[in-house]
């Protein structure tokens, strides 16, 4: 994990600097893990792993006897169903990403790097929440997409009983096309 004091860039607005190191908890309300989304996701990637299609397939201590879902879907369970951006009071999983785009006047964004560790199996019916921390925002740079900055966000995912289900690190590039500057 990065150290806040090393990561503050002086040309950032004070408001943005104040976010570095801050932790937010996403509050989207209960959105239980559901089988239909799992079917849609595995269909989209042609994934026929039988472990996702029968309840109790893991046969481990933490298997609650319900169907478990692909681990890589972990971040999906904290996203809103309709794609609408909730209010600030209902901070979403990528809240810092959207805050930064707005605050820095960078309307576009792409993910550059992403790493996720999966600590426990997620099963249908679980309710997942997350906490995110903004680690760093870099200096402005220009690439083929336009002018922008990179930022790094760490996210912890929890089951409703408080179990840490996984950890994610995400580096994004927020940008505007050159002609928008």
């Amino acid at each position, binding site marked *: 994990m990065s150290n806040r004091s090393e990561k503050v860039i002086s040309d950032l607005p004070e408001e943005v600097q104040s976010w570095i190191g801050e932790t937010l908890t996403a509050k989207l309300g209960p959105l239980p893990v559901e089988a239909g*989304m799992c079917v*849609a*996701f*595995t*269909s*989209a*990637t*042609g*994934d026929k*792993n*039988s*472990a996702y299609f029968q309840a109790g*397939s*893991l*046969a*481990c*201590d*933490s*298997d609650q006897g319900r169907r478990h879902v*692909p*681990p*890589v*879907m972990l*971040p*999906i369970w904290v*996203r*809103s*169903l*309709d*794609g609408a951006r909730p209010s600030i009071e209902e901070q979403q999983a990528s809240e810092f990403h959207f805050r930064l785009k707005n605050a820095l006047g960078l309307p*576009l964004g*792409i*993910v*550059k*790097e*992403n*790493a*996720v*560790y*999966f*600590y*426990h*199996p997620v099963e249908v019916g679980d309710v997942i929440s997350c906490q995110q921390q903004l680690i760093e925002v870099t200096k402005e740079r220009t690439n*083929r*997409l*336009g002018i922008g900055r990179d930022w790094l966000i760490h996210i912890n995912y929890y089951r409703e009983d408080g179990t*840490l289900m*996984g950890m994610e690190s995400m580096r994004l590039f927020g940008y505007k*096309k050159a002609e928008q500057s």
Partner: protein
Amino acid sequence: MFSESVSLGDDLPVLQHKVTAKDVVSGAAASRDWQPLHHDYPHAVERAGTGNIIMNTSTQQGWVSRYATDWAGPAARFFAISIKMKSSLCPGDELSFSGKINQVSALADGLAMVNLAIIMSVGDRVATEAAVSVILPGKNSRSSVWDCAGESLREHAL
């Protein structure tokens, strides 16, 4: 796949797939990602400058997971994934997956953490580099791959 069956340097079988617009859009929808550059062609070309709609991160992770577990089998535990997106994946791309075992770490009871280096390429162009960690059971393992405490395994992963 069992832990006894794998060795450092082993190659995974190549998987090839031609990316379609349906792949990109259905993957984005199934991952609740309604950013327009994953479904809106005019936005992607005229506003985002990506040249076409592009496959989102979650869908790429899904493909990498599918590729790794097609090889490792349903008894394997998918423990970690890291991806670096070097260039975009778009409809029409002839996508090729290749992979190699770059680390094998013995765990308790015959289990093993196996780290894979996976490349998603289109012709000579590398689209995405991925690293994946899976835990394989041993032929005589009594414990489940899921019974290992997650956080303590990170020293062996990726």
